């Protein structure tokens, strides 16, 4: 089977965009799972960084095979989530948001100051070991799982928490357990995305996981909506493609990008995909 050179050139040109779409889709789902249960937790970038650093160190220092690196990249942020989950999940609303942003900044300072983690220079020379099909297979699997959960009893409990936590508690929903479970799921997905992205772009640095990426990940879910798991992924696709489509506008790029987001939030307050999952009667 031979591919015409113009087609392989075209794919080569946009290869990194295609990878980013998949990785950002996973990050959007990692944001979705906490927001769907009404938790404004913004630690996704921090968890992503933990996954990226853990996977990069395993690959670079221990030469571990990629199939062993991936689960480790999920376990490290999960362990961290379990550790910090106890104290932080007592917080709610903006206080939780502030605490989780703080976590990200603390980790960034650690990456910057620990020489073994590369300091400000980051870690480079990470092999491009993440196959494209795997990224999309994992994204599809995550979507499918969230879809099934969304239509189940668990999904209903999460939606109840999102609407009114006290009422959900009164209805017999184990709010504490749900909070921790969504945080752990969010950490695992973000860690996975971190490992996949680290193993497709050769390099990671402390500033890839600071405040700015945390806000970008939140905006995937804000733009797309959280009515169904597909919505934040659509948000991620739009926000990843938008700056690339606007390359022709040179310096106006960031401004136009911002205008599109403001218009979307103003006129589509429930997200680009406002449609909600249907559930069978219980």
């Amino acid at each position, binding site marked *: 089977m031979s591919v015409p050179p113009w087609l392989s050139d075209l794919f080569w040109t946009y290869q*990194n965009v295609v990878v980013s779409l998949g990785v950002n889709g996973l990050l959007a789902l990692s944001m979705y799972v906490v927001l769907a249960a009404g938790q404004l937790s913004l630690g996704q970038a921090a968890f992503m960084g933990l996954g990226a650093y853990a996977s990069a160190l395993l690959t670079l220092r221990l030469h571990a095979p990629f199939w062993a690196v991936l689960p480790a990249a999920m376990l490290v942020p999960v362990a961290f989530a379990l550790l910090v989950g106890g104290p932080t999940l007592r917080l709610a609303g903006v206080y939780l948001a502030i605490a989780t942003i703080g976590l990200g900044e603390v980790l960034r300072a650690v990456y910057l*100051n620990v020489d073994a983690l590369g300091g400000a220079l980051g870690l*480079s020379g990470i092999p491009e070991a993440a196959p494209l099909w795997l990224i999309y297979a994992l994204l599809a699997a995550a979507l499918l799982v969230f879809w099934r959960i969304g239509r189940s009893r668990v999904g209903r409990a999460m939606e109840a928490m999102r609407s009114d936590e006290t009422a959900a508690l009164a209805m017999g929903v184990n709010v504490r357990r749900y909070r921790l479970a969504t945080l752990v799921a969010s950490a695992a997905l973000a860690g996975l995305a971190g490992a996949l992205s680290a193993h497709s772009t050769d390099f990671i640095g402390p500033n890839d996981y600071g405040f700015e990426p945390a806000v970008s990940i939140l905006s995937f879910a804000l733009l797309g909506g959280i009515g169904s798991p597909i919505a934040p992924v659509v948000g991620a696709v739009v926000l990843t493609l938008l*700056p690339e489509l606007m390359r022709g506008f040179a310096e106006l790029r960031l401004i136009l990008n911002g205008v599109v987001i403001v218009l979307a939030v103003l006129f589509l307050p429930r997200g680009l995909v406002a449609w909600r999952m249907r559930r069978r009667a219980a």
Partner: protein
Amino acid sequence: MRRRDVTRALAALTVAAALPARAQDAPVRVGLVAILSGPNAAYGTAIRAGVELALDQVNTKGKRIALTVADSGGTKDGAINAARILIGRDKVAAIIGPTLSNEMFAMGPVTNGRGIPTIGTSTTANGITDIGPFIFRTALPEADVIPVTMKKAVSRGVKTIALMYANDDAFSKSGFEVMQSAATAAGLKILTTESFGSKDTDFSAQLTKIKALKPDAVGISALVEPVSGVLLQARQLGFGTETLFIGGNGSNSPKLGQIAGAAADGLIVGSPWFIGKPDPANQAFVAAFRAKYNRDPDQFAAQAYDTLFILAAAIAHAGNADPERIRNGLLRTDYTGVMGPFRFDAKRNPASAEGVVVLEMHGGTFRIAP
């Protein structure tokens, strides 16, 4: 203005698409990846200005080089996407950029894997050219600049030195390590090493200790704000002209004179380029830059300006747009530009620091150190 740029880019694209790639007399297309949007856009804009000024001059005798500019936005994904578009869609034969070392660590493997010569003009971190055989840089790392400053200090009779540095910032810390080894290599005796935080405002404990040791010189590796603070307090504590203050690259900023004023007088610092260098090539560059852009060039513009000439010479040597031949041309570079004489060493880094000038603070501005 912007719309005209877009139209021009579209027109260039249409023309490029219509022309058969095998046309012999077609200009060689090169790409520039720079930060043109976001908080670090000032660096990319200066680099673009330098490259475009050089391009005008290279193309005076017929269009030899065509330039396509791509914005990286200062992110690693932005730099990778820009490079892939330049290579895959625009078929450039070589790339100048990106702006930051971290961008190069992500973009370099992509361009190197495709065999496209890539020249960083401002990427000073260690290990940049280890990415691969197609990665070059024209930026002088601090490790090349500080030894020249130390040599100047020795020529002024300095024998002992005390070192101070900010220990909470990677740039200052690596600068300190360079300073330490350069001082030892220059035969200076290091009397003490004192550290502080970048946001500190009180340095009197460290300075009092240093004053008691009576060193001939004090080397400071930190960003310009803490350096200014150290100098102001040192003068209050009675450090006079008998002590030579030596700055790292962080001190190479006009802000030093604005903040510290007369307290900074006498400090020396090495710089890869200086606007007041008297040689005719540099004066012509500064005049042309002012005429075209109505402002003063900076170090980033100067480095980018030289780099396009170096690339143009390599393309002339190659005779066509073959990236492999252009790479060989780059390896044979022997060019004297506004930064001084330039060649690449075996590892594709600048071979010599002959172009480095040592500057001295005098009345709140820099001049070439006597």
